[in-house]
């Protein structure tokens, strides 16, 4: 129990100390998680919409595969990405291993199935007749996706929030692909693991709290956008 209070105290100390290490970690964390979320949203939401709207063979299997992707263990993703990015691997020439780029890639891959899967469900929950109304008005596919997006903003934002949550909390893949290198690829989650391994539980909790506050601010914003102008 004391660890938790110690953690809170330490968290406040840490932030106000403006410790370089902590600032580095925060900077990398924000950079990685926000870029990864943005990329995953830009790819995932349109793909999810199209999968939901279009009819094609093996659609259910594809959706099952995407849903399975939500359960991809980050460690496996980290491992596989590493194998590809290894100097001698097929994409070694990119030199993305142990860099922020590689971490973003890993995070995007982790968040994509979540964002796509939940976006598919959001679009599929749309009353068929609303969709028919939209195309009856003369919308092409991308126009209808945009109109639908406005109508189901709430569930799509939930998908984005879940994707962001998985990104911000993920540790296995960033650890492996990023390498948890101090000042370069160390992020909040990997720092927490490190401090835990060191036995600095209070420190670990302090960083955890910083992460939660950061994520709370992002979520508060997203949640307000989500809950604003609700259809009721």
């Amino acid at each position, binding site marked *: 129990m004391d660890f938790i209070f110690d953690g809170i105290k330490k968290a406040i100390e840490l932030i106000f100390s403006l410790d370089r290490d902590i600032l580095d970690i925060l900077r990398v964390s924000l950079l990685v998680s926000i870029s990864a979320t943005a990329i995953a949203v830009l790819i995932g939401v349109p793909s999810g919409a199209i999968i939901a709207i279009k009819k094609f063979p093996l659609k259910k299997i594809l959706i099952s595969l995407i849903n399975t992707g939500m359960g991809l263990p980050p460690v496996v993703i980290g491992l596989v990405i*590493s194998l590809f990015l*290894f*100097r001698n691997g097929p994409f070694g020439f990119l030199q993305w*291993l*142990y860099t922020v780029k590689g971490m973003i890639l890993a995070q995007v891959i982790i968040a994509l199935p979540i964002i796509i899967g939940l976006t598919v469900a959001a679009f599929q929950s749309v009353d068929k007749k609303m969709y028919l109304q939209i195309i009856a008005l003369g919308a092409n596919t991308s126009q209808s996706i945009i109109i639908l997006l406005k109508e189901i903003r709430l569930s799509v934002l939930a998908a984005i929030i879940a994707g962001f949550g998985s990104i911000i909390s993920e540790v296995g893949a960033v*650890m*492996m692909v990023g*390498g*948890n*290198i*101090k000042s370069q690829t*160390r992020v909040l989650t*990997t*720092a927490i*693991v*490190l401090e*835990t*391994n*060191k*036995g*600095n*539980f209070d420190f670990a909790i302090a960083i955890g709290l910083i992460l939660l506050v950061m994520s709370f601010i992002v979520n508060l914003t997203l949640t307000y956008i989500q809950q604003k102008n609700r259809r009721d």
Partner: protein
Amino acid sequence: AQENKIIILATTTSVQDTGLLDVLLEKFTTETGYTVKPIAVGTGQAIKLGMNGEADILWVHSPDDEKKFVEEGYGISRTTFMHNDFVLLGPANDPAGVKTAKSITNAFKIISEKAVLFVSRGDQSGTHKKELKIWKIAERTPNKEKYVEVGQGMAATVRIADEKQAYCLADRSSYLSLKKNLSLTILFENDKNLLNLYSLIPVNTQKFSKVNEKGAKILLDFLLSAKTKEIVENFGREKYGQQLFFYDYEVKK
């Protein structure tokens, strides 16, 4: 009261990763009927668990921390019972030229002077502590620009060093198990400063009433027995073609 048949062993990942622990504990359980819960974590965390009375016995390899632990009364006794050793790994072409160094301290000096990349575990583990100690003895500080602190386990650290074609300090057993996928080779070994000593420390019951004193004692006795000695000395010969650990405790007949 019912006898507590569960023993919590706090140990480090390097012990678990070789597989030695599994072999020993299986034997122990069949012989004694006790269940051991081996918690393989970072050295710092293992010691912390002991300091909180959350483990019954420690099996770790960070002599300075261990001594402090016993001195402060958290541990009853410290028995250094086996060792293996650390090796200095680096790219086969050895850009810094440490192959010919006289000692490990000398090798570290060269690394610092030639400003080659060095990957450190940076996680306060036994290995990391050892590395820091060598730097200290060598009276050098690592070159800031070329010093990569990864804050991860041995396997990841070696992996990163391999990718970056950097130097790093690793324990021999980890190196052997990772060797098949590595381009790094051993550039320096066999120095007295490279010994990796493993000790057993039963946690002090006086400080923590919930510690399973009897269980810890039985496990300690088992690990300090001829049976264990035999297992340890034979461990790894089949898989790696060489002995991984050297048993140091003088087993009573």
